[in-house]
């Protein structure tokens, strides 16, 4: 199939892994040294979730041609650029969208995703207006797509290769909030 080398879903079972698997396992720097912040594991367990393997399709072209049912969420960056978030096989979704007259690419592997349950952590890492989501903008000095889910969690998607760095930045920011272990987050958890 055309461009199937973009699709993790076309890989055999058991061959794929999240880029954040290690970052959210333990906090370690890029040379593999463990740098365990106090309570970091707890923080990770309760306030951060890995969304990296979730299906995402990058769409180019006339976004008005994309039916609302294409994915559970369509983030329009411009009339010509957008991302569809889907629970279906993103490679199939991309094919279906192409049939509608737009160009679509499986971006599942391109983006690492992290859900965060703390608005304050968001404010420490981005100056985006959190009342106006979804949008694309800076997060920890890199470009991110930021959405908010129904439970109030913030979803941050960045380029896969920056995922580890961003996860570290998030855990570090959480550590800076001086939350006593077990403190309830502002939303969810």
């Amino acid at each position, binding site marked *: 199939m055309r461009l199937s080398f973009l699709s993790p879903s076309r890989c055999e079972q058991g061959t794929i892994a999240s880029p954040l698997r290690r970052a959210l396992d333990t906090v370690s720097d890029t040379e593999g040294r463990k740098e365990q912040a106090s309570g970091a594991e707890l923080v990770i367990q309760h306030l951060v979730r890995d969304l990296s393997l979730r299906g995402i399709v990058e769409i180019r072209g006339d976004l008005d041609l994309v039916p609302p049912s294409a994915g559970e969420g369509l983030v329009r*960056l*411009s*009339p*010509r650029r957008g991302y569809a978030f889907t629970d279906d096989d993103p490679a199939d979704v991309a094919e279906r969208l192409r049939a509608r007259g737009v160009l679509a690419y499986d971006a599942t592997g391109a983006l690492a995703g992290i859900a965060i349950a703390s608005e304050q952590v968001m404010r420490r890492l981005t100056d985006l207006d959190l009342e106006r989501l979804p*949008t*694309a*903008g*800076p997060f920890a000095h*890199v*470009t991110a797509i930021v959405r908010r889910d129904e439970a109030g969690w913030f979803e941050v998607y960045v380029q896969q290769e920056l995922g580890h760095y961003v996860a570290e930045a998030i855990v570090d920011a959480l550590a800076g909030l001086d939350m006593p272990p077990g403190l309830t987050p502002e939303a969810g958890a």
Partner: protein
Amino acid sequence: MSFLLSCPYCGPRPVDEYAYFGEVTKRPAVSPTLRELTDYVYFRDNVAGVQREWWQHRTGCGEWFLAERDTRTNEVLEATLPEPQRPGPGSGLAGSDPR
């Protein structure tokens, strides 16, 4: 520099989210003289006033647009999408070499 620039899609955002590709210039016609070529490649008007410039909302939607900015006040009067121009000799908008 911390002024806000309005992306045609994302609205006002801090200028550091954008990449600046310089004032809009015009590529010279077929086989320019060395003088015309170096003028185009190396010289800029650098006006103290309103000029048309290329911007990209790099840390954002990623789209490219043209802005009319007053270089004295950083006030952006207008942000528009480039008019599609089929390439040909002497046509096509150009800007500064990003490097």
